[in-house]
């Protein structure tokens, strides 16, 4: 019974951490954040490898291997495509992005060119 409580504790704390770490995200980054979070749950690959590696029947092995392929697509594809998006964000504007937050309404933006 004690062990269940430990699991519950981990779960509840993870919920709070999950909400807390992204609570201040700017809408600019919603798409990469969604894509990056998407890649993280690709870690189901760990589970897929475990069940496939202990499979005792051929059917089990085949289903397990399918799960491994799907999970890898999720994980690898997710991280790569997120990086591709963020690479573009980091383009020309990068060095100045820090100062863009405090630019007043009337200030001119010619400097950006």
């Amino acid at each position, binding site marked *: 019974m004690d062990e269940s409580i430990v699991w519950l504790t981990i779960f509840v704390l993870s919920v709070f951490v999950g909400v807390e770490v992204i609570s201040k995200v700017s809408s600019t980054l919603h798409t990469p954040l969604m894509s990056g979070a998407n890649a993280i749950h690709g870690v189901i690959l760990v589970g897929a490898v475990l069940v496939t590696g*202990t499979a005792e029947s051929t059917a089990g092995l085949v289903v397990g291997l399918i799960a491994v392929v799907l999970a890898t697509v999720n994980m690898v594809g997710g991280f790569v495509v997120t990086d591709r998006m963020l690479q573009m964000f980091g383009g020309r504007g990068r060095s100045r992005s820090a100062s863009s937050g405090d630019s007043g309404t009337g200030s001119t933006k010619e400097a950006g060119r």
Partner: protein
Amino acid sequence: MIPTWVQLAYLVAAIFFIVALKGLSSPRTARRGNLIGAAGAVIATAVVFAERDLDHVLPILVAVAVGSLVGVVGAQRVQMTQMPQLVALFNGVGGGAAALVALLELVELSERGSVADVAGFDLVATAFTIFIGSLSFSGSLVTFAKLQELMTTRPVLFPGLPVAFGGSLLAAIAVSVLLVITPALWPGVVVAVLGLILGVLLVLPVGGADVPIVISLLNAFTGLSVAAGGYVLGNTLLLVAGTLVGAAGTFLTRMMASAMGRSLANTLFGALKGGSTLGAGEASDRPVRSTGPEDVAILLGYAQRVIIVPGYGLAVAQAQHTLRELVDVLIERGVQVDYAIHPVAGRMPGHMNVLLAEAQVPYEQLKEMDEINGDFKQADVALVVGANDVVNPAARTTPGAPIYGMPILNADEAHQVVFMKRSMRPGFAGIENELLFNPQTNLLFGDAKQTMSKLLNAVKSL
């Protein structure tokens, strides 16, 4: 018992994931955050292979190689306009993987012997993983089909849909209970099939504009199913990672829904209640003021302040590069130009930022809605390109309109408004835009890319 060093390695991977999500929340750290997340995933995967004497290592490695290849090629080939589809697809396969893992674990659990040997809650979690995983899989595929326009983007409704939905849900719960009482593979398969059906039924009635919110929701679902799978397998890393994504995804979904001025329930089930995401979808024949590229060029070239409101139509026409050139020319002429980015511009929240970043628009020219909305009053021209619903005043003035309550860009406060449009067809929400008929509004009809090139040349020759 899992060895201590493995547990510690999982802890490190979990910390990496938390740092990754934190990093992804800020433009400066986003890319590094994503790479940290990838490192966490690599650690986790490497540990599994090192941890135990696994059988079938070679076929597993081949499967990993195949999956990596598919993932990398898909990620490299995709066009930025198709990003929402790809995220949906990646999310769906993750859900599918979670469901398959739980099904295999169910076989293992049911062979373990009498019911007493198997903790009841393990089976509850197994059923949950199978159900949510397969729901996320099929739901994501339908989402993909909608966004790729393999099927209609409008809400699909048929009589009896609520009954079918409720019936399948109840059946899934009933069979799950049966699965917990008498563990066997077949109820697991039935739960999976019901999950697949419900995923389709959940997404069908959602209209095009709301589909991105559904992607985010299904993303959270997959996270939760991975978390439950972690409990079943006794793997803390899966529990933590899945829960992080589930919680963050749910929170993000709510933020997106509120950016559109809607509740999540209204997004999902609005169409069922009738009319909510369904506009008339017809073009009006009321008189509008149409203009040519030369006139707009004069308007823009001699303005002091121009605010551009880009929409998905811009990216579909691949006109964002030409737009950037136009802005460059205007800035050289001394015009102050900014882009006003609505939170849901594009087909996915934050999508427009990605699309403009691709066209190498400097980050500091992109202004978020709250930042720029006060400036429209001083703007000489608001140039609306391929956007519609995000500047529709009906969101402020017409209770009962599908977009009523959605915060919008105050383009109507600019001295002059220029709309670049292909036709008078309404936007995603399917409702007419009063702004088109305002006296200070000029319409520039035509394909965004061609018209933009003409406009660019006209401004250059001023």
